[in-house]
């Protein structure tokens, strides 16, 4: 194992290297010294990774096959946690809500980010605009969710402003039927700026002569985006979609703080997978069920992997060169 990692045949052969080393380089003192240093540099990192990432993941998998109150003896449960979870209507609600967050909010965030990228591309003062759209992501989600709670209260700022402009009939924003929708809007607002800034950074890397050529050809702003900007930022979009999937699947603090009171659990109609897992492990009035919480975690892990593969496949492209 040690030698397999330390002396990778591909690396050694050097075939993929643009400036491949000659056969003599393999035995040069520098190369031998580098090979010796490879191991002490890589193995500590690998050991840390195994200890803090791989081992807990395997433990979670093991835990999902047991019943456990968080301490004391475990009781083997086989696949019971999974079957019980899939039969639970609240888990199905959590699945649908997770889908809305990942896909619904994701689509809104990326659409807004693309739109803002187009709008801000040639705008004067775009650096200032970039800072403004980035601002919401600087404030902790907890603070934002608390603030949103007060904004949308029956006597809150939103309703006061609506009343000032003569709108006295407004939705009960924080009613249980509307709460999840308000949360989705809040998450969209919170995340759009980050992706806008990343997209704008990607756009900055595109050579301006391509846009000049497009203009000479008479391309509209949308066509410039369609045929120049998007293809050349596709790799960034791909990475962003992966980042979004990973982050959205574990959305938690915004939901909890926005909806729950005094350490209690929020209403089940706004639960997502992360909340489901939390509720099973930390029901404030009941015995912890780490087995089901872990089973839910395993499902999230699988879904994350699946979504990442899908996102990478959809946005796969050959390397573009400028």
């Amino acid at each position, binding site marked *: 194992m*040690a*030698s397999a990692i*330390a002396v990778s045949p591909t690396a050694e052969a050097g075939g993929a290297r643009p400036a491949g080393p000659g056969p003599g380089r393999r035995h040069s003192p520098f190369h031998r010294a580098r090979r*010796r240093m490879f*191991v*002490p*540099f890589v*193995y*500590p990192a690998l*050991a*840390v990774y195994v*200890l803090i990432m791989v081992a807990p993941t395997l433990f979670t998998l093991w835990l999902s096959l047991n019943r456990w*109150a*968080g*301490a*004391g*003896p475990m009781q083997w449960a086989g696949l*019971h946690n999974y*079957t*019980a979870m899939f*039969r*639970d*209507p*609240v888990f199905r609600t959590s699945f649908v809500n997770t889908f809305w967050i990942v896909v619904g909010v994701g689509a809104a965030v990326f659409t807004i980010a693309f739109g803002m990228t187009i709008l801000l591309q040639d705008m004067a003062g775009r650096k200032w605009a970039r800072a403004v759209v980035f601002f919401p992501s600087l404030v902790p989600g907890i603070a934002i969710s608390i603030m949103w*709670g*007060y904004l949308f*209260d*029956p*006597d809150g700022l939103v309703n006061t402003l609506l009343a000032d402009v003569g709108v006295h009939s407004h939705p*009960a*924003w*924080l*009613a*249980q*039927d*509307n709460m999840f929708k308000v949360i989705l809007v809040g998450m969209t607002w919170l995340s759009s700026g980050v992706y806008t800034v990343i997209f704008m950074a990607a756009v900055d890397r595109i050579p301006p002569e391509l846009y000049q050529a497009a203009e000479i050809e008479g391309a509209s702003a949308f066509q410039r985006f369609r045929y120049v900007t998007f293809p050349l930022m596709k790799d960034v979009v791909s990475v962003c979609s992966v980042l979004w999937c990973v982050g959205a699947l574990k959305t938690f603090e915004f939901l909890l703080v926005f*909806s729950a*009171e*005094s*350490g*209690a*659990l929020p*209403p*089940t*109609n706004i639960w997502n997978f992360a909340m489901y897992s939390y*509720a*099973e492990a*930390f*029901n*404030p*009035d*009941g*015995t*912890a*069920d780490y087995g089901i919480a872990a089973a839910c975690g395993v499902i999230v892990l699988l879904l994350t992997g699946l979504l990442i593969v899908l996102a990478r496949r959809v946005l796969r492209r050959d390397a573009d060169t400028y």
Partner: protein
Amino acid sequence: MRRRQPPLLAGAALVAVALCASACGGSGAGAGPAGSAGGEDHLTIWSQWLKGQPGQQFLQAAVDDFQKQTGIKVTVQWKGNAVVKSLLPALNSPDVPTDAVETSASQIQNVLYPAGGMADLTAAYQQQVPGTSSTVAQVVGPAATSLATPVDASGQPAGGPVVVPYWASATGVVFYNGQNFPALANAAPKDWDAFFAILDAQKAKNRRPLAQDGSVTSYNAVFYNDFLASVLGPDALNKAETDKTGQTWKQPGYLQAAQLVERLAKGGYFTEGYDASKFPEMEDKWANNEADFNVNGSWLPSEVGPVAAPGFDYRSFVFPAVAGHPAPPLNVTVSGIGVLKSSKHQAAAEKFAAFLLQRGYQTQVATKMQNIPIAAGTPAPAAVEAVKQAIDAGQINTVRSPAALADYNAKIYFGLDDKLVFGKLTAAQFIDAMSSDSADYWKTKG
């Protein structure tokens, strides 16, 4: 190949040492005296209070006094509401970082006890309370002892008490401003017919008389809980919840209780916006005389104190009976000291628990903490004097909800009850849904 092994081993060893150092450091720091003092008298307590809270100030003063009088050093870590969540994973450590935990009995019983972490305090209840001729059991009393004892899946006591409580709180208490309703001080409504008459009189003045923070599901549930406890007795909810067929919900009485909630919801009694506001919006409105009554917990006066209208005269009476039925017994929660099974200083922890039951400290629970002392006959704050009388008279609900039902409540009961309280479901729809959803729930549990 072999020459590579030393750096590999060295690297791995370095990581192992680093991780061990950090882990051991963390553990040692958290463990403090509990983990390291061996047989010495050095007690560590994790508390539900945060620095600066009245409860923290009370407990710190008691700790200082206890140290002076006994020579036992006490370290308290102020963990706040997350104390039990923090302690649960720590129970897996070979060196559990505290000797005792100070929080509500329900949390200790439902979370820490099932994990095998708590000591049975039956023997501790036989020790004498300093400065008195009474034992802990006598001061705590049988009803509160019952509340400090875990129950099994059927709600029956399992073993002895695991908490020595020193204060109590209660839900289902109807608060009002004594300035606005002076006649109620000595003539609390005997039943809901009388109370509805008072509420209707307020409605006639274009007021929405009942403040209700609908975003707190447990506050919403108080109405159905207590109506049902009055109509069918305090064990009726447990019976229906644990019936795997769901048919118990269809029995007479369950619908009657739901109809009373429906009457409140659809009759315009609750404050406007109660179903779409953030806690504590509605109780703050009540404290500023924008609503007349608030069915809440005994902690309400101290909670709204900083925002209440000047001169607000907190008064209360317990949840009235449904006409023609006995009043529901008061729902009480007790809080106090639980001792960890792994503690090396159990005797010292039990001694401290008994120390808090002295008359002087019990009086301070009322005067400094503004809470209800556990010892019978010790005066409570005036705002909750009616509650204290009910507790001393033993008129409290000792029916226990099994810990496993917390999941049922979170997933079935609270959601449907919220819809009933918000007027989204009629009483009949509520009962039908409770019945069918209960049957489905128990099917998922296998």
